[in-house]
């Protein structure tokens, strides 16, 4: 198949061999699970259980709150020992509302759980409803509620479902392993999603550094004419959804738009697997495959992890640390987030836990920019990272925005190639955060002004009414 070129990109050392040949293993049940109520983009879920209650595996723990939200289910059977605050799986280390569950060791599924014999007999809306009820979110790390994306057919003319098996982040191998070991289930999930979306074509993009996954998926997809496995060149950030779509169908997603604007919806293989589980067996999303790797981990591997498992438990399962890790990262080394501690739980969007040794993560001292344009050439979005960083440094946030800050996908290619080791992404994140804060402040001011004006008008109306009433009374008296 003819592929289309994208601009920029880099070829980082992929370091996938640390874990790529390790089959997915099941994690023994940890003694305690901490299940955050917000593991997705959107509103947090609201608790549906009380402390002390016994729950079965897959039982609903918290309802979704509105459309852009996702429910949370019990990852195993056990007792609810607390509903409170616990450090989030997030760089901030702030607390979020979390349900703590003590497993009873039986891992007993709820009786209410029941699959659908023929998902293709359901309407697309019913499928989306089931996906929503199963708490499935984008499992590549974005954690956008999947049902919302499945319902895009109501607003867009869609023609293709793209499965993002690029896994272009170095180190990560969870999607690779899942596609190799569960190809049939992934394909089944893809078929169900394709039906729900009403698309005529499915393109599964897999980078060429995963030949086994390409082969396994090709084999599993053979019976289905509309599914096509596409071999992608290995190049970061191939897994950026807009760039992946452009590579596959040659159309650029408009700025600030969705890939649905060009008729494409993108899902992750792990999401497809979760859809398969939810539709065929009625199982909600209660576990996921994670890659636990990095030079500091003694036995890197791929593990199916119950959601809410403390990361320390996972690290212990993988033999603990070989050396003191210099950095602990959730996700890959390019776009992953630093983790505040190993106490935090695994969540729906956790595709990897990286413990990097000192020499893997060394970062040079930042020097002045020499305008070498490495960053300009590496940027897949056509931006001028060096100019943006220079403006962010001087606090010229409007200037950064004018240069296209909001079109930056934060892939980090620029910082990766910078000879001066300038923390470009840090500057962009700062500027994005500041601009968002300013936007909120401005919104608040506008809103306050509007309310104050309304109040003034109301007051004036009351005064006027009083005056008129007074005048009338006077007239009546006279």
């Amino acid at each position, binding site marked *: 198949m003819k592929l289309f070129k994208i*601009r920029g990109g880099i070829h*980082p050392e992929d370091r996938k061999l640390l874990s790529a040949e390790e089959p997915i293993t099941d994690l023994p049940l940890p003694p305690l699970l901490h299940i955050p109520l917000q593991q997705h983009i959107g509103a947090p879920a609201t608790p549906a259980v009380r402390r002390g209650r016994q729950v079965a595996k897959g039982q609903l723990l918290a309802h979704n709150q509105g459309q852009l939200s996702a429910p949370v289910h019990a990852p195993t059977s056990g007792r609810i020992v607390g509903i409170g605050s616990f450090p989030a799986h997030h*760089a901030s*280390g702030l607390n979020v509302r979390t349900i703590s569950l003590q497993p009873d060791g039986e891992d007993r599924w709820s009786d209410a759980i029941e699959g659908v014999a023929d998902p293709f007999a359901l309407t697309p809306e019913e499928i989306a409803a089931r996906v929503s009820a199963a708490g499935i979110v984008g499992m590549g790390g974005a954690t956008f509620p999947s049902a919302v994306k499945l319902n895009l057919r*109501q*607003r*867009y*003319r869609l*023609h293709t479902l793209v499965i993002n098996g690029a896994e272009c982040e170095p180190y990560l191998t969870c999607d690779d392993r899942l596609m190799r070991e569960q190809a049939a289930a992934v394909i089944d999930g893809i078929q169900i999603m394709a039906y729900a979306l009403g698309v005529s074509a499915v393109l599964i993009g897999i980078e060429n550094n995963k030949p086994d996954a390409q082969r396994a998926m090709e084999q599993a997809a053979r019976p289905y004419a509309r599914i096509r496995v596409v071999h992608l060149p290995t190049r970061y950030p191939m897994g950026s959804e807009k*760039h992946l779509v452009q590579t596959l169908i040659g159309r*650029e*997603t*408009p*700025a600030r*738009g969705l890939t*649905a*604007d*060009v*008729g494409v919806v993108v899902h992750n293989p792990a999401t497809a697997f979760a859809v398969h589980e939810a539709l065929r067996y009625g199982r909600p999303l209660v576990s996921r495959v994670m890659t636990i790797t990095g030079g500091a981990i003694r036995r890197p591997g791929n593990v199916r992890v119950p959601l809410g498992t403390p990361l320390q438990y996972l690290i212990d399962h993988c033999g603990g640390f070989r050396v003191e890790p*210099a*950095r*602990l*990262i959730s996700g890959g*080394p*390019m*776009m*992953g987030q*630093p983790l*505040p501690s190993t106490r935090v739980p695994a969540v729906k969007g956790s595709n990897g836990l990286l413990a990097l040794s000192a020499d*893997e*993560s*060394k*970062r040079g001292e930042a*020097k*002045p920019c*020499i*305008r*070498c*344009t490495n960053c*300009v*050439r590496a*940027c*897949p*979005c*056509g*931006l*001028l990272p060096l100019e943006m960083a220079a403006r962010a440094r001087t606090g010229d946030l409007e200037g950064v925005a004018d240069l*296209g800050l909001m*079109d930056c996908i934060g892939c*980090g290619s620029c*910082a*990766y*190639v*910078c*000879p*001066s*080791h300038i*923390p470009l*992404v840090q500057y962009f*994140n700062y500027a994005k955060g500041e601009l968002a804060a300013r936007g909120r402040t401005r919104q608040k001011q506008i809103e306050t002004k509007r309310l104050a004006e309304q109040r003034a008008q109301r007051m004036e109306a009351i005064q006027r009414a009083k005056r008129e009433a007074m005048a009338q009374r006077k007239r009546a008296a006279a």
Partner: protein
Amino acid sequence: MSDRHLVAGPYAHGGASVSRTMGLVMLALIPATLFGLWQFGWPAIFLFTVTIAAAVAAEAISLRIAGKPIRPFLTDGSALLTGWLLALTLPPWAPWWIGLVGSLIAIVVAKQIFGGIGQNLFNPAMVARVALLISFPLEMTTFVTPTPLFSSVAPDFPAGLDITFGTVESQVRFDAVTSASVLGHVRSELGQGLSLPQSLPADYSALRGVIGTVPGSLGETSALLILLGGLFLLYMRVITWHIPVAMLSAIALPAGLMHLLDPGQFTDPILHLVSGATLLGAFFIATDLVTSPLSARGQLLFGAGCGLLVFAIRTWSGYPEGVAFAVMLMNACTPLIDHWVRPRIYGRDRKGVPLEPGDDAERPGRLD
């Protein structure tokens, strides 16, 4: 680990560094430099050493005065490279103080006063060269015919010391070997109303220009070796093809056209390309990272501007060579070019307007 929680990714790096970049450029300069040092002998070696040492010393002192850390900046190799490039553009038997003054101008005036590495608007080596040329026209235009090291015509070590560090009188004794550069010769002869074939030096051939056994600046004579270094830089992706190709074509095309129209008055494009600072300029000077535009299209414009200016200066001005002037004039345009010529942002058209989503029934898009 102090920044463990604070710094955003990526947590991997490709290994590029400023010193590596500078080192690659110097590596690319080695063949042409060695050739120059060999063919112009001890005086050239002395001048080269003085220029580089002065550049590094000036950098260290400036950093000290500015209160910046000396070690990390000095070891990035940028001062060394500036001195090196400047030395290559000097007449090989120029007195030592030419190198010294040049390096001081390059490092102190053109680089550190602007704020140090990455901040300068003009290419430091070219600022120095132009300043020297205007201030010391005699020393800066006294070239010698090649006297390869260890050959019978070459000055020996003490004689070399005398040429570089001696008095003006001691220089005059070597007048026997002084000669004009090819471009200088052609310019002055044409100026006297002679036609081009009569103007070329008697022993000139394009082949000698390519190999470099002609009078000229210390490191500019061998077109072949400079081209080799330039191709190495391209291969190592230190530079891209845009500036060199645009600049060379913008010299060769007008030169070719004019030469076709009037071969008697206009030098042929080959001579333009192989002589003077053309190739050094196209691959090593105009491509200076700090002072050239950021975008590929901007670089094409910049290179073309350099080339056209070189041709115009060589053809119609009082100077036989114009690379330094041309590059500096275009350096001044770089901020303007960068302002107006930017890459197209993904998902937007060239004006920055978001692309239209699906716009007809055949194409996908929003259902409105």
